[in-house]
């Protein structure tokens, strides 16, 4: 049953074909079997079985919601009351969250089962999952390769069928890039659509949580449970949440697809370019028309991001001081030593690098030249999207310039690592929603197609993804050894 989609499992639970307890056992067993992928930081077996039992009672009573009894796994960035929430860092290795993230509360209220907490790049800073304190995650399609990051555990767990759905967070591509490299469906919603309360902060004006699933139909169900206004998050949007499943089958006749010429340059692997072209041809068959567009400021997205994100990170991570929770160094001689050594001993190299860059960019004399400059460029990038959406309904392109790279290949070269997010970062700067859906394989490794929509157009993106998944089967492939 683990190979079924979330929607199929929900039907199976309702028809009584299997119980949530049986389903949860099945996944827990698979998680044990495939522990060498290193997807999980914490497995919450007892809690999962308790939740499954409650879900079965709810299902029997007939008051089940779509996610009741469905085994999910959560990125270890979401606070889970009474359960270790590490954010992939030594700093929070001993942190038992005293409260739940809003997203976790919502899943609990829906009766979903949590199997455990998923591995990730430390504080979500990374594109390969290699910066995790808990070690690299293997890509199920090629175990010598990275799954992408920062939601690497979430993507690999989906590809290996270790959960029916997982969550991720996306600050510069951290849902879409691992989704692409692992051949699954990932959705980064509009900024403000999903509450950030209890989601450990990296760069607060960019961070957004979202679902990672096998297909768009499942993503619609997950997003329905996650989305909505939350008074506990001051940047949460009050825009009404539509029914994400209702329009999945709408016709794509007359859909205007924009292809930014800046996406299709020499940096893009030609085989990936060909794969994207094939997918676009499929959309034409579904009735879409294609318009070449230009977004002249896209090339400034990486430079602007690597000021804005580190600046926000240096401020957010100043809370880790060794005083109230988290790691504390041994025998501090004074308060300055306590702060400096606790932080120095518990943060990894990439987190330190970003704190340093952010501190530099915000320091006296450099603030205008770096931080304000980057914010001005952010506006230009955002305006590129506004202009594009006056002409087209959706923008399409690649998610990544290459397929999954080898573990260790880029970990020594931060700049090379940063460039792997070249097609995803601009979306976060603008705050618009985007998806990665499986579109084929290059040398037996998955390729993702990126769909970018206007603000709060998640329902339309899911519709566009779903129609493609009705006529293709890329999202149904399973890596060898995980059948």
């Amino acid at each position: 049953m683990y190979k079924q989609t979330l929607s199929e499992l929900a039907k199976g639970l309702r028809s009584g074909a299997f119980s949530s307890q049986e389903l949860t056992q099945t996944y827990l067993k698979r998680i044990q079997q495939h522990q060498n992928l290193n997807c999980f930081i914490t497995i919450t077996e007892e809690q999962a079985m308790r939740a499954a039992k409650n879900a079965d009672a709810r299902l029997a009573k007939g008051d089940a919601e779509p996610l009741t009894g469905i085994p999910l796994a959560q990125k270890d960035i979401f606070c889970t009351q009474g359960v270790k929430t590490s954010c992939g860092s030594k700093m929070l290795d001993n942190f038992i969250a005293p409260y739940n993230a809003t997203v976790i509360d919502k899943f609990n209220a829906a009766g979903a089962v949590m199997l455990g907490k998923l591995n990730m790049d430390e504080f979500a800073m990374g594109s390969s999952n290699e910066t995790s304190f808990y070690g690299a995650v293997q890509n199920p399609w090629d175990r010598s390769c990275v799954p992408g990051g920062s939601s690497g555990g979430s993507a690999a767990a989906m590809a290996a069928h270790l959960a029916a759905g997982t969550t991720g967070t996306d600050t510069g591509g951290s849902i879409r890039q691992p989704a692409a490299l692992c051949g699954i469906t990932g959705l980064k919603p509009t900024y403000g659509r999903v509450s950030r309360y209890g989601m450990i902060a990296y760069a607060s004006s960019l961070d957004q949580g979202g679902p990672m699933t096998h297909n768009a139909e499942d993503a619609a169900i997950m997003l329905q449970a996650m989305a909505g206004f939350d008074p506990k998050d001051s940047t949460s949007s009050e825009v009404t949440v539509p029914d994400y499943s209702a329009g999945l089958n709408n016709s794509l006749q007359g859909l205007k697809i924009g292809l930014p010429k800046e996406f299709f340059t020499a940096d893009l692997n030609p085989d990936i370019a060909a794969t994207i072209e094939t997918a676009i041809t499929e959309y034409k068959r579904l009735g879409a028309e294609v318009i070449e567009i230009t977004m002249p400021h896209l090339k400034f997205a990486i430079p602007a991001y690597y000021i804005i994100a580190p600046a926000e990170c240096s401020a957010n991570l100043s809370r880790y001081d060794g005083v109230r929770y988290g790691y504390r160094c041994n025998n501090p001689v004074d308060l300055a030593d306590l702060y400096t050594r606790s932080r120095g001993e518990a943060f990894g190299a990439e987190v330190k690098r970003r704190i340093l860059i952010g501190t530099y960019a915000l320091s006296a004399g450099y603030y205008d030249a770096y931080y304000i400059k980057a914010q001005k460029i952010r506006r230009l990038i955002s305006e590129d999207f506004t202009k594009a959406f006056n002409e087209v309904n959706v923008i399409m392109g690649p998610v990544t310039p290459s397929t999954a790279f080898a573990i260790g290949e880029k970990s020594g070269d931060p700049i090379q690592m940063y460039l792997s997010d070249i097609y995803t970062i601009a979306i976060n700067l603008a705050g618009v929603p985007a998806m990665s859906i499986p579109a084929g394989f290059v040398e037996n490794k998955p390729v993702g197609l990126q769909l970018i929509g206007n603000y709060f157009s998640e329902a339309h993106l899911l519709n566009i993804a779903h129609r493609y998944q009705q006529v293709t089967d890329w999202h149904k492939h399973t890596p060898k050894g995980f059948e």
Partner: protein
Amino acid sequence: MLLTPREIKKIAHLARLGIDAEDIDAYADSLSGILDLVAEMNTLNTDTIVPMAHPLNQVQRLRPDVVSEVNQREQFQSIAPQVEAGLYLVPKVIE
């Protein structure tokens, strides 16, 4: 190189971030590389552009000035590195 090891030490001090002496050169190197990367921003004239701090141009939402939190001191302090008599302990600050 844009940043010297001395500047790295100064930034690390501002961030209260301990860095091993033998790593300082490597940080100077990689941070200089990042500043090279972001220098591309300077090829664009942005004199008349208004900075954008937030994607939705939102106004900070306010809430009524009433107590909305309950006291959870014991729960929060149960995960603290060192507490005594309901207080967080740190090294002596005043002699």
